[in-house]
């Protein structure tokens, strides 16, 4: 069952091409700050743009090699034609790299639909009002492009569908509160990744089926040292498997593409754009937003709730905002009694052997 999720993620381009052939419109988007509900309500399928661990072939002519491997890989995949099925692409203003990429992407990929979504850095009332205005412009533009009406009803329906998926994903996480969780960290990661691609109703149906069948399945994971992984996103699912091979088990995460993607719900209301603006801005902040404290508190809470023995803090090489957070998070965790393993990561040229040596030593130290 779990492998179905991974398969749908690894075959994501084939799946999307199938939807395209069936006459569906597909919009690629970046980052947790794109309110996918708007795209869903417009009748298009939102898919997260991801890189891979594959070597860079074409992007080096367009981006310096000291930009993060995530952004280089995303552009590279696009230049290779892997995203040729996209009708459009949405860039929210999050980190500096996600702000630098749109111009380059637009010039080289010439997407039929293109939208840059200004997201404020703060999350106070003024910022929410500003963002509500921006979402109204985004909504108008999507409606204009698709010719579909987006109203409060369709938006609230989208919010409901997305909230349901968020709840189900959190249920999956909560399974790991058990001393012997029925799913491994890498299985949970694959389940989450598939949700970046599959339409949310379909993904939710798969999650329900999985949850319904779990009580009868065996509790397979035991004995692994309970760990948390926090930091950037990464493409190599082997990284999660490597941790398990070293005798650890990831029971909870604070990753860009991980719990922070689905941890906060959006309120259904008669002002859905405002609810979306409020919910997206006031979620647990990405390091590119201010301030950092709520994220640190959330990391500490998760580490306590999930009774982890240690935390792997994984930072994408050259990711400035995560780098600034690293000393603050490291200190806060250590003060709270959680040992930390610092890992500098790049999906491209990832060395599993070196990573395993570090993780093994860390786990030995914890035991």
């Amino acid at each position: 069952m779990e492998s179905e999720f991974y398969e749908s993620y690894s075959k994501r381009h084939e799946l999307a091409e199938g939807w395209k052939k069936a006459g569906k419109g597909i919009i690629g988007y970046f980052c947790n700050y794109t309110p996918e509900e708007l795209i869903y309500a417009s009748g298009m399928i939102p898919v997260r743009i991801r890189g891979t661990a594959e070597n860079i072939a074409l992007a080096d002519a367009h981006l310096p090699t000291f930009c993060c491997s995530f952004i280089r890989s995303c552009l590279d995949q696009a230049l290779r034609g892997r995203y040729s099925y996209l009708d459009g692409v949405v860039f929210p203003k999050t980190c500096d790299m996600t702000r630098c990429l749109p111009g380059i992407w637009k010039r080289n990929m010439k997407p039929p639909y293109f939208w840059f979504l200004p997201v404020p850095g703060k999350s106070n009332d003024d910022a929410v009002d500003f963002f509500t205005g921006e979402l109204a412009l985004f909504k108008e533009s999507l409606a204009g492009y698709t010719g579909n009406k987006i109203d409060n009803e369709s938006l609230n329906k989208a919010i409901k569908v997305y909230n349901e998926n968020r709840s189900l994903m959190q249920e999956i996480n909560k399974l790991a509160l058990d001393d012997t969780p029925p799913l491994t960290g890498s299985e949970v990661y694959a389940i989450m990744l598939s949700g970046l691609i599959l339409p949310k109703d379909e993904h939710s149906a798969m999650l329900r089926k999985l949850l319904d069948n779990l009580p009868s399945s065996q509790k397979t994971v035991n004995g692994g040292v309970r760990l948390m992984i926090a930091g950037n996103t990464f493409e190599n699912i082997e990284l999660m498997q490597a941790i398990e091979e070293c005798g650890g088990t990831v029971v909870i995460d604070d990753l860009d593409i991980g719990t922070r993607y689905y941890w906060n719900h959006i309120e259904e209301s008669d002002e859905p754009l405002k609810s979306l603006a409020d919910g997206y801005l006031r979620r647990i902040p990405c390091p590119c937003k201010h301030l950092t404290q709520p994220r640190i508190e959330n990391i500490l809470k998760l580490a306590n709730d999930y009774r982890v023995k240690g935390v792997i803090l994984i930072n994408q090489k050259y990711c400035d905002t995560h780098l600034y957070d690293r000393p603050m998070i490291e200190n806060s965790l250590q003060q709270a009694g959680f040992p930390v393993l610092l890992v500098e990561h790049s999906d491209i040229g990832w060395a599993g052997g070196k990573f395993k040596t570090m993780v093994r030593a860390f786990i030995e130290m914890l035991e």
Partner: protein
Amino acid sequence: MEKEKATVPFKPVRLATSAALGTLNENYYRDLANAKADGKPVIWITSMTPIELIYAFDGIPFLPENYSALCSSRKVAAEFCESAEGRGMPQGLCSYALCMFGSIFEQRGALGDEGAGKPDILLATEGACATHPKWWEAMQRQFNCPLIIIDAAYTVDGDMLPEHHKSYLEAEIKKAAYELEEYTGRKFDIDRLREVVTLSDRASELWDEIDEMRAAVPTPVTQIDVFTCLFALVTLRGTREAVEFYEQLRDEVKERLDNGVGAIPNEKFRLIWDLFPVYHNMRLLNYFAEFGAAFVTDLYGNAFSGRVDASDPFGSLAERYLSFFMRSASLGKSELYKQRIEKYHVDGIVFHSNRCCRCFSAEQPETGQILREELGLPSMTFEADMVDPRIFDDAQVKARVETFIEMLEARKYPK
């Protein structure tokens, strides 16, 4: 091809006015050191912060970025960066930040002194990059003083500034003024802000005038003079001293212009410098001059100039700080260069691929391609770090310069 290389390293005739900069510098650092005794609040700000607000409160603004540049030119940046890394600051952080943290940790400064001391207030603006507020947050943990953040949204295209973006930033600047009232215990005075804004506008106007004069053939000022003289615009924008300094500078440049005096002898090539100075190796600019290559325009200096209007101080400040050319998600910089290439008779562009400043370097390859494809403009790129000299490969960079010059020579003066 035979290169016309001087045997003695080129030493440009500096502008007499740039000597007056020494006095400005000394006065500024004296005021900073005496701030406590004078009862003036010291406010540490990021580069794209409306500095006018600080002067309106009669405060002393301090720019860590500028200070790290000073440390770099005084050859103490490498040890400061190492010190910061040794205390857990990640490698690969912006070297302005790393170097500043090193100076803070070591309690040593650029001039063999005890460093820049402590801020009374930290004020960061989401103005140039997303890391500024992060850096300021990290310093707040160090100094435990009030932190103000001015938020601003990015536009898709800097040329089309939406009204609600302007009003959002305007409200943020006003809120910062309230916070400054609270933290400094001083009353905000709109008339004082109008005065400061008038002075700031005048300094920018003069800077733009000087920038225009660089279009002359031969160009009257060196890039080193431009970078050094920028101090007054960066740190003293909004003061009478800055205006007087730029009036003097403008007059001297004008005099050179009227007498046909070039900044370098035998100007053969006219180039654009993109973008950051290499503070630890400003002499690299002179190396170009040895081959008759002069830098005639750049956007770095212009990032700090911008017209403001005393009749609408908050609104015009908001507009001015949103118009900064890197504040958009489009490739706007190439459009600005396109406007300058003909006017300034430009033969080529040099990209300083600034390793630690990802967001200002990321679009350089694309900018180079656009200028090459649309205007046939040749370019060269070299990698360095603006502040940290540890990765700089002098011989390799110079070899690149030589190859580039040969190519320019073959294009412009075919045999």
